[in-house]
């Protein structure tokens, strides 16, 4: 249940960026994600270097930590890489392609995690991921076709493969980089 909450929190970050992109344009979406990223970096520092006491700020920080992160991960690491992954397409791609890339990252990754957790059909090249998760990523993120056409289908397929690989770098960034490269080349 906590993992579902974590994915929902990440999804909401991404969907709000998408909403701002659609309603107000790439500039305001970039401002939002930029500010969130800076705040996350500061929260990372605070959570790392301050002993937990009972101040209001400590309670807020640790509540956010519980919401955004897995217990075994470093402080706000996942959310930070996720926001970096959101910021890249917003600032580099056209608004249409950026919207598709954000949708692929936000919805595809969430679907892969939520479906993959309950599956046992492990991938041969990465035992931590499942075929069901990979397919869920591709199927859900393919809806970005409605925004960016057939390029989005290709991007969804490549991003699904990248997300399933064990690259030793947070997949929120690798998926985003893959989406940016695909949309830039096609």
């Amino acid at each position, binding site marked *: 249940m906590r993992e579902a909450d974590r994915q929902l929190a990440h999804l909401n970050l991404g969907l709000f960026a998408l909403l701002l992109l659609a309603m107000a344009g*790439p*500039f305001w979406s*970039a*401002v939002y*994600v*930029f500010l969130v*990223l*800076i705040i996350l*970096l*500061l929260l*990372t*520092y605070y959570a*790392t*270097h301050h002993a937990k006491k009972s101040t209001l700020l400590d309670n807020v920080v640790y509540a956010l930590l519980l919401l955004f992160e897995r217990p075994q991960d*470093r402080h706000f690491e996942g959310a*930070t*890489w996720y926001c*970096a992954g959101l*910021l*890249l397409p*917003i*600032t*580099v791609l056209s608004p249409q392609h950026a919207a598709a890339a954000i949708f692929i990252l936000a919805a595809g990754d969430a679907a892969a995690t939520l479906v993959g957790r309950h599956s046992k059909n492990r991938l041969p090249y990465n035992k931590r991921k499942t075929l069901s998760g990979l397919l869920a990523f591709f199927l859900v993120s393919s809806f970005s076709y409605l925004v960016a056409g057939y390029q989005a289908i290709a991007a969804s397929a490549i991003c699904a493969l990248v997300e399933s690989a064990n*690259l*030793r*770098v*947070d997949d929120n*960034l*690798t998926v985003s*980089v893959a989406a940016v490269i695909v949309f*830039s080349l096609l």
Partner: protein
Amino acid sequence: MDPLTSFFSGMDFPALTAAFSLISNEYIALLILAAIFAATAFLYREWDAAGFLALVVAFSLMISVGAKGLLAQPRPCEYLPSKIPCPEDSGLPSGHAIVAFSFAIALRHRKSFPIYLAIALLVAASRLYLGVHTFTQIAASLALSFVALAAAVLVYGRFYERG
């Protein structure tokens, strides 16, 4: 032009212009950053970060050069006045900002992080103030600095585990 870029580039303080023009020279900027690192490494005993940081800076410079060539986005000074001569290379990303952000993000778990974050934000603001980059180009630099960090982590994984 977006409101943030207009706000910063619309300001005009001679002392700020002189200071920001000085760090506009890449070599001087890198020297200043290296000097600040030497001071904070001495204060906080963070000398072990030196090798990894050199790798991060190298990757951020490579990504900056590559992205400028591929994306070829114009600078705002190509169509609006700026406080320094408009650099000839393209505007996305900001080389100064990507190096400064990469440095800060690489040290985000260290005690010196707030100093480098403040430096990175000041460098970013200076590029907006001088009129040589837009806010979106600065934000892209922040995003690409994570790519530089990821590349450095892949090469220098041990530091990341310990960092």
